């Protein structure tokens, strides 16, 4: 019979594993006899299938071997012995233990960080008692030919409709953001941000009141509920209930004090204003209750436990369809989504609080996993390499009666112990990393606190156990298979060198990963620098943007103009190129489309050095309501095909913006209104009326910047004593607009650093080991006349080839990854520089050479007489 005519080996193994020893032999024989018979009658394929089925069919109570309690018991007794031997081997091999512990500790600290982050993200909103019954209303907004937009916000009407028609909804609450103003109590003023919330708000969410009646606190118009902190700030220790608070000329009454919010709440507020207030104020505004007014209201619904959602969703779809019928070219539809995971639902727009994409957590876990895996490789590699030394120990154990499982247990226990030691170190590293991570970006410290809880500590220990088992599995398996007799007779019989392939592969993987991360960091850093250096189409140097915060810009501008270092002051509604947008509808002939908008004054364009292709800047300040001029960019001409795209001829053409006819008086060169992730789109400049919202742009002389900033602040103080000045350098603002990139580069850079450290540690261990074991060979070669250079080459060769292989894999992979996958998403990216890819390789190679070189030179310089004397 040919070797291939055998029954499937795994099935036989399975049988051997579960079957009682007493029954095994004849069962195997029977199955084999039947198999042979079936091969003849039904063919090999069928016979094999029948064999497998029969093996599974034999899995009956009477065939399954009983767990050997005695053995289990022995395992427990032996743990003491395992601990002892593990400690001995740790102490005896100080270098290897140190390499292993440091490697695992460093990699695990990243794992701990990721665990802490993910636990924090997952415990958002856990404090709500009815948390799993709260659902939020999500809006899908489709506008003509644009892609649909998913919003976390919805219309006030949606809340009303759900309250009226959805049978299962126990409570429906609507709240709205955007209340901001200066609260006046007595003679003091407090700038505050708040949300409008209706009476059901305190019923749906668990925000307990420390004072006041939760059932009625938000019922009346002009009622306030303060957080404890705000209450203390405004009233000190006095009881605030019933006290009046003035906003502008309107008086509000405090009706409740809510306990300070837990940090991990996606809804955040310092103060609640009763929703009835805004209803009273907005009553005359016609669009407040419109179905398509979906931008700043939030509706949350408390459903019964385990609700049948499908009928509710279809009900909502029906309502959406009815309501959307009123609009010609847009549709607004709503649906319910569980509140849990609101923070990880990053792809929605208009989120209530902080939100990130779940992709981020996946990427973070992926990076941590890669790093931990790399450290596990080190452990595996070094342990297997050391097997020569330990195989005798295993051999003796086996001869005095240790089973395979005992040896396996011993080595697994050892690796878990090492992982636990590493956990102690890595916890220290974690505390340091945590601080650095939180300081990386204000958004991060806003999102997570990384406070340790009992749960996180448990996860940490679980991680250490897992790492220990993962790292120790292969060596343990390897040792458990050692044949005791062969080892005791002659160590060289050990199948050590069969493992070399695996070890080489692991080293190549480690180095490929390290090189990839390094190249990724360099490419990413260059892209980030490129974004900052990018020519936006206008000047941002030495410009300070100051938020008006409700002050009259004219008065403020006069104050600033008196400062000698200030060259020029202009006004604008918003700051371009930072990723915020103001939209408007432009109509030319029959064609209408969305354009981006900024309101500016006549100083804005010269100050920012916008290039006029044709026409002139704004000259005259229009009287209120008599605005008649507009400046457009090239894209507007292109999009609407005005004057066949010729800037000169476009002058004097009339366009309609938000219902107002405006004459084009100038055409400017295209510039980046949004961030560089977006393409250049049509933009218009209108003349700003004297609105208190918006910014002053102050161009200052370079020189004593801190001094100038101080003077700006003094000037601000003269006009506004309440609000601290909010002044930022334009370039700094651009930098923070791209902060997520710098955060990413820093994180990947750090990972690259760790990866290379761990890989280097591993390589170092391997080099030390190889040179040690080859010491005698080297000495003999030396005695026979080999040169030192030749010896170094002899020792390095293997490692060099591995490094070259990893470089050959890593460089094209990085190039492909960035060129075809990442940078595709950025229309204005820098080309990838070959230097970026190679620089990392050179550095890593140098490092590796240094390590290999120092060890091999040491070995090659050894006095052969000393080494060979003992033989």
């Amino acid at each position, binding site marked *: 019979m040919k070797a291939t005519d055998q029954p499937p080996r795994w099935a036989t193994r399975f049988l051997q594993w579960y079957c009682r020893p007493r029954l095994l*032999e004849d069962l195997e*024989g029977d*199955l084999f006899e039947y198999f042979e018979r079936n091969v003849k009658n039904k063919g090999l394929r069928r016979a094999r299938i029948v064999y497998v089925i029969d093996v599974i069919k034999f899995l*009956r109570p009477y065939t399954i071997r009983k767990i050997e309690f005695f053995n289990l018991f022995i395992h427990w007794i032996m743990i003491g012995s395992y601990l002892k031997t593990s400690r001995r081997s740790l102490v005896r091999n100080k270098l290897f233990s140190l390499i292993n512990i440091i490697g695992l500790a460093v990699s695990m600290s990243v794992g701990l960080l990721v665990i802490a982050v993910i636990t924090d993200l997952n415990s958002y909103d856990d404090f709500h008692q009815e948390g799993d019954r709260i659902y939020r209303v999500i809006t899908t907004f489709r506008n003509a030919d644009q892609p649909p937009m998913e919003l976390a916000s919805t219309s006030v009407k949606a809340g009303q409709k759900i309250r009226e028609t959805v049978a299962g909804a126990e409570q429906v609450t609507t709240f709205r953001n955007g209340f901001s103003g200066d609260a006046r109590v007595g003679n003091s003023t407090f700038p505050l941000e708040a949300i409008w919330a209706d009476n059901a708000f305190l019923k749906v969410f668990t925000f307990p009141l420390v004072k006041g009646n939760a059932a009625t606190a938000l019922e009346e118009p002009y009622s306030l509920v303060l957080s404890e902190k705000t209450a203390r700030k405004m009233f000190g220790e006095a009881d605030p209930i019933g006290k009046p608070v003035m906003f502008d000329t309107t008086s509000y009454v405090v009706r409740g004090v809510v306990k300070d919010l837990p940090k991990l709440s996606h809804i955040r507020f310092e103060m609640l204003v009763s929703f009835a207030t805004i209803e009273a104020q907005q009553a005359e505004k016609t669009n407040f209750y419109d179905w398509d007014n979906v931008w700043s209201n939030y509706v949350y619904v408390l459903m019964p436990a385990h609700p049948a959602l499908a009928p509710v969703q279809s009900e909502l779809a029906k309502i959406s369809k009815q309501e959307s019928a009123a609009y010609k070219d847009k549709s607004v539809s709503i649906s319910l989504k569980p509140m849990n995971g609101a923070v990880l639902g990053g792809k929605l727009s208009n989120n209530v609080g902080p939100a990130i994409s779940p992709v981020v957590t996946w990427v973070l876990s992926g990076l941590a996993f890669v790093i931990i895996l790399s450290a596990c490789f080190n452990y595996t590699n070094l342990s297997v390499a050391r097997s020569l030394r330990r195989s005798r120990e295993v051999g003796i154990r086996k001869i005095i009666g240790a089973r395979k499982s005992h040896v396996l247990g011993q080595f697994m226990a050892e690796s878990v112990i090492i992982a636990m030691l590493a956990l102690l170190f890595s916890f220290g590293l974690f505390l340091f990393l945590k601080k650095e991570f939180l300081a990386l970006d204000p958004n991060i410290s806003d999102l997570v606190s990384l406070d340790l809880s009992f749960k996180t500590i448990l996860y940490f220990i679980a991680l250490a156990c897992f790492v220990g088992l993962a790292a120790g599995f292969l060596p343990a398996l390897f040792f458990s298979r050692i044949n005791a007799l062969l080892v005791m007779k002659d160590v060289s019989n050990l199948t050590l060198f069969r493992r070399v392939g695996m070890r080489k592969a692991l080293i190549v993987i480690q180095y490929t990963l390290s090189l990839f991360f390094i190249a990724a960091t360099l490419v990413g850093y260059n892209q980030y620098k490129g974004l900052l250096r990018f020519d936006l189409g206008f000047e941002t140097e030495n410009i300070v943007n100051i938020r008006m915060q409700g002050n009259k810009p004219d008065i403020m501008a006069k104050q600033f103009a008196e400062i000698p270092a200030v060259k020029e002051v202009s006004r604008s509604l918003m700051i371009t190129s930072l990723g915020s947008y103001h939209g408007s509808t432009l109509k030319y002939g029959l064609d209408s489309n969305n354009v981006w908008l900024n309101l500016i004054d006549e100083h804005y364009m010269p100050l920012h050095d916008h290039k006029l292709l044709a026409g002139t800047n704004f000259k005259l300040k229009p009287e209120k309501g008599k605005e008649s001029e507009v400046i457009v960019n090239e894209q507007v001409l292109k999009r609407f095909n005005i004057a066949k795209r010729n800037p000169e001829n476009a002058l004097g053409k009339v366009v309609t913006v938000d219902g107002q006819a405006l004459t084009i008086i100038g055409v400017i060169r295209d510039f980046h209104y949004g961030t560089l992730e977006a393409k250049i789109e049509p933009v218009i400049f209108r003349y700003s009326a004297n609105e208190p919202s918006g910014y002053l742009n102050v161009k200052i002389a370079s020189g004593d910047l801190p001094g100038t900033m101080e003077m700006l602040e003094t000037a601000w103080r003269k006009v506004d004593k309440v609000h601290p000045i909010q002044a930022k350098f334009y370039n700094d603002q651009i930098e923070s607009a791209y902060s997520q990139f710098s955060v990413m580069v820093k994180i990947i850079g750090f990972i690259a650093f760790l990866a290379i450290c761990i890989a280097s540690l591993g390589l170092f261990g391997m080099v030390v080991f190889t040179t040690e074991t080859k010491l005698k060979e080297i000495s003999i070669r030396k005695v026979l006349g080999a040169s030192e250079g030749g010896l170094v080459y002899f020792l390095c060769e293997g490692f060099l080839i591995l490094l070259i292989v990893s470089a050959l894999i890593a460089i094209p992979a990085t190039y492909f990854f960035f060129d075809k996958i990442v940078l595709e998403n950025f229309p204005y990216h820098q080309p990838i520089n070959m230097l970026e890819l190679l620089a990392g390789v050179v550095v890593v190679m140098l490092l590796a050479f240094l390590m290999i070189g120092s060890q091999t030179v040491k070995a090659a310089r050894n006095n052969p007489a000393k080494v060979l004397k003992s033989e």
Partner: protein
Amino acid sequence: MKGTNLGEFEELVLLTIASLASEAYSVAICDELEKYTGRTAKLGVVHSVLNRLEEKGLAKSRLGEASSTRGGKRKRFYEVSHAGKVALTKSKEVRENIWRNIPGFNLEGSI
């Protein structure tokens, strides 16, 4: 020991063991059973019955000599133990007693 009752299939298997004399091992028993009864005897079922018979003390088993067939695995041969013989004889007597008491006409029409 769970009851020493002899089930119907157990009885068949035990009888087959007896009839095969020294050649009674699982595969042969299966084949023989198929021949006698005309129904397919699954190896798994037969095996578990053999195991049960042995547990009840109605059959004894021993491993045969190793040979090159069957992947080199030895066969387990079964023989009827004394208790088995007693059980078989007893069950035969019971049946014969009942047969003897059936009035002649009672079964004739139904076949």
